[in-house]
């Protein structure tokens, strides 16, 4: 409930408040968003498995975001930023898909 409420609040705030993103942060924001989405879906899966823990969620959220950002930062410094971005996106996408499929199984098995 808190998660859904938070999402809605965030979207509404984002629609009404439009800050200028600092130019240094621009390549990392999409990665951050995808990583956070992965953490959220992992949390949803854990919720369905009845092993959800808010501590784990918070830690995985930050760990995901920071790891993804650092990875892309590293890639940018090595000159393979876009490729590494793609790699991170692909891996996170796979994780999201597997999480979603697990959640789907939970929902349809009952």
């Amino acid at each position: 409930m808190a998660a859904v409420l938070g999402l809605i609040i965030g979207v509404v705030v984002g629609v009404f408040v439009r800050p200028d993103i600092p130019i240094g942060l621009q390549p990392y924001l999409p990665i951050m968003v995808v990583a956070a989405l992965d953490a959220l879906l992992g949390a949803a899966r854990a919720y369905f498995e009845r092993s959800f823990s808010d501590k784990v969620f918070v830690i995985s959220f930050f760990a995901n975001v920071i790891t993804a950002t650092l990875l892309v930062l590293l890639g940018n410094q090595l000159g393979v930023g876009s490729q590494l971005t793609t790699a991170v996106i692909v891996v996170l996408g796979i994780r999201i898909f597997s999480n979603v499929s697990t959640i789907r199984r939970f929902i349809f098995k009952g």
Partner: protein
Amino acid sequence: MADQHQFETHNAQSQSQAKSQRKNNTDPENTQEQPDLLHKISQRRAQDRENDSTETGAFPAVNKAIPNLKPKTRTLRTKLISSSLVAVLCALLGYGYVIQSNNSGEAVETMSESELTRLISDTNMQVDRLKDRKEQLSSQLRSLQEAADKQSQAQRIAEENAAASGILSGRLPAEGPGVIVRISQGDKKNIDPAILFTLLEELRNSGAEVIAVNDIRVVTSTYFAQRDGTLNCDGIVIKSPYVFKAIGDTTNLQNAVNMAGGVGSQLSVKYGAKVSIETSDDVKITEVAPTTDYQYAKIVE
């Protein structure tokens, strides 16, 4: 190495145990030792199962709820804090998502080299296209301006024409250099229309542009006539002195009247009338002729 060794010895032990078990089963005399032995055997087997387990750290047990991770007694405060933390994180996610989706149009920094090259060539092509378009439009603008100039010139000419024809047809009042001819009543003979008409023709021939006789504007249809002993011009009775106002070249007009044997001398000699000519730089002819409605003539289309 030590582990392996232990494992081997343990295997040997279990084999010997199995042998002894078979021996025990075949030998019914040792029944009083059986409970103790059975207990030992079952203990050993349990130990074996545990040792033979293939579950290691590399193969974690999935779908197993971790017991006692959460403390059983959670206060309302911690619950509130944790759920609000979750909400804040989710809000951050939604916020980031919306901002990024609003901003994703101009992320030039994240583009690769080939994408940037394509973008540049696209932009260059667009610039060329726009330049072409601009040239087209400016040439169009030029031609339109020329057309407008032509049109304004045409309008100016039309206005001039209107003025000229207005003066010619007597529609408009006129002014300019000219002469004023005054003719008094003749002593010897009454002034007749013919001599007035001759004077008018002389003035016309010498280039008079606008002529008026006694407040009557002279146009192409103007006539002089004698009716019941009075002179009339265009149906209006005129009386002496007859005043001719004419706009044109003053010397020409003067010469036309004063010419030897001309209309001026005829008037003074034949009719005994006094003719005075006054030149002026600003003869004002404010009389206008009534407009005529053409009944038969029509403009050729």
